[in-house]
């Protein structure tokens, strides 16, 4: 349930056509939910880990672009 000052039709505009493609990968021994981009690159969407410190790791922050082939950040 949303409680917001923004009109709901603005918040939810485009919800029907919003179909992101996500993929689960293992990267640097972490399981990540990523959005594949061009050329083996991917954007981190979510970290799947039980280690709380993984969530403070700057290389694993959502939005970071990673190289799926080389195990290195881009």
């Amino acid at each position, binding site marked *: 349930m949303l*409680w*917001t000052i923004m009109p*709901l039709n603005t*918040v939810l505009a485009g919800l029907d056509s919003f179909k992101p493609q996500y993929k689960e990968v293992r990267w640097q021994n972490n399981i990540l939910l990523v959005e594949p981009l061009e050329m083996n690159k991917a954007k981190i969407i979510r970290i799947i880990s039980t280690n709380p410190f993984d969530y403070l790791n700057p290389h694993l922050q959502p939005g970071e672009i990673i190289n799926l082939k080389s195990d290195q950040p881009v």
Partner: protein
Amino acid sequence: MTLQRRQRMPQTPRRSRTSPQSTSLSQENTLQNIQQLGQTNIPTAQESNIHTISIIGQIEGHLQLPPQNKTTKYEHIIPQLIAIEQNPKIEGLLVILNTIGGDVEAGLAIAEMIDTLTKPTVSLVLGGGHSIGVPIAVSTDYSFITETATMTIHPIRLSGLVIGVPQTYEYLDKMQERVIKFVTKHSRISAEKFRRLMFCTDQLARDIGTVMVGKDAVEDGLIDEVGGLGQALAKLRELISNRKNGVLH
């Protein structure tokens, strides 16, 4: 985040002109580094004992919002709060708010997590802390609002829906009660006053509710003090040193 990716500095070979007898130990180390590694010591960023979390845009809950929304996702914030609680090097948390509201459950979950964190916490409302941002703002040990920041309190409802059955009304009322209970427990405002502000009819153009600017929120007892970044950090440091001296916050 304090850890920055290390950047290689352009390597400029430097020759020490001082005589070997007068070179201090650190100069010797630098010299050794230049000779062996071809580079000088790189100053590393000092690790901060304070971490910060910004609650921005929409607080995203069980529904993933379309990309035009800037969102704060609870599945990211909650494990970070656990890491902050766990890490002995982190001594305090600063929560920055600039949010227009969002999911009630996710917002309350974040607020409860911040509230039960044993380390000192301070919040700062910048720009806006509306709707579900209100319980998050009051969940910290001490709260600040900048002079120009606003907070909107308005009833929870399903937009555009005509309430046809009493059950719907009761459900909304229950959700509202959860928020009111949390806010009144964690601030100086009374439930009656909060409800009065929520259903105020002469403040908003097309809605009922109240907009509070800076010191209004402090006068109404919702926020502790008007202040900015300096005051918020100073307060956090004070709470940290109090905790070290055995004073419970």
